[in-house]
């Protein structure tokens, strides 16, 4: 508890000017994190450039809690790629591998419909993903994709999973880090 006492003492001893400057520096940290995130989105073309693996369906390649870096660039998507995709009406994105892909020709392309039909499957799953899609849905399409996995960092997303499972830990951690920044001297 020594740390907390130190922090409280330090806060008490601050002038208004000091306090404002510390709050501003906290704001700077938050906004630079936000800027880095937005720059990553611009550079990768993916609206969610870093994702945490939430299921074991790609084991032993990816485990729950591992981090994937996504890219959503110009190179066309191909069978064997590992895209992250969203199914309409569901919050949690899925990381699976493309099993089949059919790109329609000019002649059969319906301007209202999708150009590329994609079927996915988890490496560790016995069956393809039609059981996960909405009933009657046979394919997903390019607009479902958030990007393809191009980089891998193990375990690093475990903190996110723990914080999602126990929200109290999240608030404690954020509060504690915030206090630490506010009271730290340059």
């Amino acid at each position: 508890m020594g740390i907390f006492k130190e922090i409280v003492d330090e806060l008490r001893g601050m002038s208004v000017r000091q306090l404002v400057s510390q709050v501003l520096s906290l704001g700077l940290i938050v906004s630079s994190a936000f800027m880095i995130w937005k720059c990553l989105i611009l550079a990768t073309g993916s609206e969610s450039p870093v994702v945490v693996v939430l299921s074991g369906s790609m084991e032993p390649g990816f485990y729950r809690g591992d981090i994937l870096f996504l890219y959503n660039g110009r190179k066309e998507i191909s069978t064997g790629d590992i895209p992250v995709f969203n199914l309409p009406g569901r919050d949690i994105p899925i990381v699976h591998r493309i099993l089949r892909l059919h790109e329609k020709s000019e002649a059969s392309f319906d301007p209202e419909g999708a150009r590329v039909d994609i079927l996915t499957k988890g490496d560790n799953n016995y069956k393809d993903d039609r059981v996960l899609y909405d009933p009657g849905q046979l394919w997903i399409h390019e607009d479902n994709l958030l990007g393809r996995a191009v980089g891998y960092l193990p375990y690093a997303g475990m903190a996110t999973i723990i914080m999602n499972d126990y929200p109290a830990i999240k608030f404690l951690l954020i509060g504690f880090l915030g206090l630490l920044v506010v009271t730290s001297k340059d």
Partner: protein
Amino acid sequence: MHSATYRLNAVATMAFTGLLALCLAVSVTELAHKANPEASLKMHGVHHFKPLGGNDEAVLSFQMKGDLSSCFSWNTKQLFAYIKIVYETERHVRNEVTVWDKVMTSTEEARIEEAFLSKYALVDNGSDLRGRDVNLTLAWNVMPYIGALYFGEKVFAAKMPSEYMSDGRQG
């Protein structure tokens, strides 16, 4: 100045920076890794070839002699090897259908010399497979312990039978 928080912060920052540099260094070593995978693959047989619900379906078998073990570096967790049939039809400019895959976690598993049946049927999105020239592509995804994922492939030619058949007999 020399408070507990400062020491804790300094140690944590140092550990984190060191870990990050190490991770980066390990993933960069992959650039120096040269692989020379060898493989030959050919269609061994067509065991079933029929339309089902408007879509052509075929069960194939393959003869493969391959050694992908040189793709393993010290940072390679596994290879995901797969065979895809790539072809073009009037209705679709690009069809890529996976018919076989295997997770290879050791160099021993990356050496294959055998004939085997397709794991998934070759299913067309339509009925345009008869007499079709197709590319038989053996591809592999190198999956690391840490760092970038990358792909390699070798392409072989094959041709689908011009008539539907079952159990190797035309009809």
